[in-house]
Every structure is written in C-alpha cells, then in structure tokens.
C-alpha cells in the first residue's frame, strides 16, 4: 500500500519555502492594529452614544452596541465593501464582531442562487457555525463547572 508519506519530498518543500514570497510582516501588522483599533473605537463611540443619549447601561448597553456593530458589518458586506477592508486589514477586520457578521452574511448572499432555504438559510453558518458551536458548548461547560463549585462548597 502506497501511503502519502512516500511522496513527500522534504528537499523540495524546503526549496519551495525558500523561494515563496513572504507576507509583508510589518505592514500587515500595522494595518491590523490600525483597522482593529478603529473598529473598536467605533464600538466605544456607540457605547457613549447609547449611554448618554438613550440612557442604557450594563449588559443591555453592551448588547445593543454589539447588535449595531453586527448591523454595520452586515451592511458593509452587502455593499461589497467589507471584503475590501478585509483585504487591506487582514486580522484587523476578521477578529472584531463585524468580522463575525461578515462571515455570516457573505455565504448567505453567495448561496442565494441555490434558494432561500437550502441556499441562504442553510449556508449562512458555513464559516461562523463553529463559533456558535464552540461558544455555546464552552459556556455550558463553564456554567456546569461553576454550578458544581457553588453547590459543593
């Protein structure tokens, strides 16, 4: 039985690594920092707005801010702007919650051609699905552990 190992040619892979172009390290980091910082600052601006103009606070304030951020990310994705921001900023636009919105909306739009049920609705979470799965699973785990701690001690 031939297995994959037989094909691997380490000399060649090392050679490829040495001739492959590298990402512009410094530039990509600076861009990620600037765009990431900017998106978070917009979030902070929204916090102040909701706090002083609407009078929200605590969890409710945080929830509305994240909803608006998700709206913005989704809207920019629909307009076809967010992919360009992403190309420029890399991690700077992937990690903020707007990037989460982008990863939900982009497949939803993309698979519209396969219908509204099996296309849009089913494909909506092809990229973001793991976030919900791991997020909810870990929160249940944390909840159970803490419940155990509170009830034993």
């Amino acid at each position, binding site marked *: 039985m031939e297995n*994959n190992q037989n*094909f*691997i*040619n*380490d000399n*060649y*892979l090392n*050679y*490829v690594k040495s*001739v*492959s*172009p*590298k*990402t512009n390290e410094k530039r*990509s980091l600076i861009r990620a920092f600037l765009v990431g910082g900017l998106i978070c600052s917009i979030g902070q601006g929204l916090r102040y707005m909701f706090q002083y103009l609407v009078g929200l606070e605590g969890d409710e304030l945080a929830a509305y801010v994240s909803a608006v951020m998700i709206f913005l990310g989704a809207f920019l*994705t*629909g307009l*076809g702007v*967010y*992919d*360009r*921001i*992403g*190309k420029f*900023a*890399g991690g700077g*636009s*992937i990690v903020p919650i707007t*990037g989460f919105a*982008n*990863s939900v*909306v*982009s*497949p939803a*739009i*993309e*698979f519209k*051609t396969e219908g509204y049920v099996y296309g849009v609705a089913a494909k909506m979470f092809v*990229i973001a699905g793991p976030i919900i799965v791991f997020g909810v699973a870990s929160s249940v785990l944390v909840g159970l552990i803490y419940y155990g701690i509170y009830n034993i001690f």
Partner: protein
Amino acid sequence: MRTFYYKNKPSIIGVSSVGGPKESAGELGEYIEIKSNDDTFGEKTFEKAEKKMLYTVIDNSIKNANKGIDDIDAIIAGDLLDQIISATFSARSFDAGYLGVYNACATFTEALTIGAALVDGGYLKNVVCGTSSHFSSAERQYRYPLELGCTRPPQAQWTVTGAGACVIGQGEGAKISCATVGRVVDFGVVDVNNMGAAMAPAAADTLYTHFKETGKTPDYYDVIISGDLGILGSRILTDLVWQKGYDISKNYLDCGAMVYKNAKKEYQGGSGAGCSSMVFCAYFYKMLREKKLKRILLMSTGALLSSLSSQQGESIPGIAHAVCIEI
C-alpha cells in the same frame, strides 16, 4: 513511452476565445476574440455565466473553422466545477457527440491530445476541444464566499474568467505533431494557495520525459508554454528542469504569468482551466498563423485536488500534458 507522434498531423482549423473584464483589460486583452465587460454575461449565476462562455467559444470556433454543427463529430470539453457542469451543460445545446474530460487546469491539453488522436486515427472527422473557468464560480467552490473579508497570501493565483475552444480536423492551420502524456506527480505540497509549487514537479516531469523520449532539446521549440504555474511556479519549473540538465530559461513562457497586466499585483498571475485555452486560442494560435512562431510546446498544468481532499489533509497531486503544435 509516454510520447507519441501523430502520423497525419491533424490541424487546428478554427479557434475562439472569450475573456472577462479583468482578462480583457489584461496584457493579452487585444487578442481575445470576445471581450466582455460583464462577468455574469447577462446570466443570473456565475455557473450559468461560465456555461455561456464555453457554449459561445465552442459555437464560434465551429463558425471560424467554416464548419456547421453537422460536420462536428464530437465535443471534448472540461472545466473546474464539480461534475464538470459547464462543459456538460454547454454540450447539451449541440447536436454532436460529447466526451467530458477532467484534469483540472491541464484539461485543455488533455482534450487536445485525445481529440488529435481521434482525428489522426481517422475515427472522427472534426472534433472541438474547449475548456473554461470563472473566477467567481471557482472561488466559491474551492475557497470562500466572494464577500468574505480575507487576505490573499502572496503566493496565491487568480482564476481566469475565460474560455477557449478549437476545432481539430484536416485542413489549413497549425498542426499538432506530437504529444507527451503526463504522469500524476505529488511532492507533498499541502498549501492550497501555492498551486504553482504543487504543479511544477509534474510539469518538470512531463518536460523532462518529452525531451528524453524525443531526443529534442529546449531550443528545438520557438517557445515552451506552461499553463498556469504563475510567476513562482515558473521559476520553480525552470530550476527543476535545469537540475535535469535542460535550460529553458530563454524560450519559456507561462500563460498565467502573462495574462494580467502587472502580474505582480495579481500576486502570481492567472490560473484555471480557461487560462491556457484562452491564452492559446487568443494569442499563440494567432502568432502561429502569422508565422511569428513556428513551433511551440504547449503544456497545460493541473492541480488535482478537491476541497474535500485538502480538508482531509491530502497533499496536492499535479499533472501536465504537453502538445507540440507547429505551422
């Protein structure tokens, strides 16, 4: 022996090419027969657009060869989409035999090799060979949704939105004189963004085999053309062939590296099943007809992966078929 000679040297008697907006604005834009500013080609989905492109070039190449559909015995076509739907669905509209072929981006020379053999043996009279690819349909099948904000690594390539088809028969035109069938070669590259590096060993194997079996040297050809190795892949190929004792650095070109303006900005250049067919049918065929080139070796290169195989951790096997075309 993987190299063989066509005794009657079948001719390429008509060609047609179509390119999307980016390709039409590219380095070879002026040579493309049908240039489109709309990459949906008036269709609702990108898959339908790709089908329409392939249909158009098949139809036009038959007209350009001064033939009717009655003269065509078979269409040999392929593309990158699952179950090669672009090829199959465009063949649906023609009253001719159909052979669907798949060798990823090497499909064009695979189709030429088979088509020329069928015509050369006298089994079929006229055969159309065509391939297509579309950036947007390939992107969503192999990578991510178009609107997802992710960065392209610098070794990535850009799938060509385009198609090319040619009619092989007996008559006036560039002649196909010999072919070398490629072998599946895998050196263990797993980076799906570095197709050039994955395909280069297969291309080197085919080239080396071709030279060894024919006894020819690289300077026998006016130009040696690879399909879509890109800038990085071309460099690797030149190095690999050099190690085997052949110098192709003087007369070697890559369709992917030459298709876009300022290829560095498109990272490594174009790729896709439509890349070599569009560039050959638009540019090299014209150069042959105008006798600016007399003898070329066209070698499309393919990366035989699927989105499943790479998720399962498989490395990327490559393939390349070479066809000698002369006037």
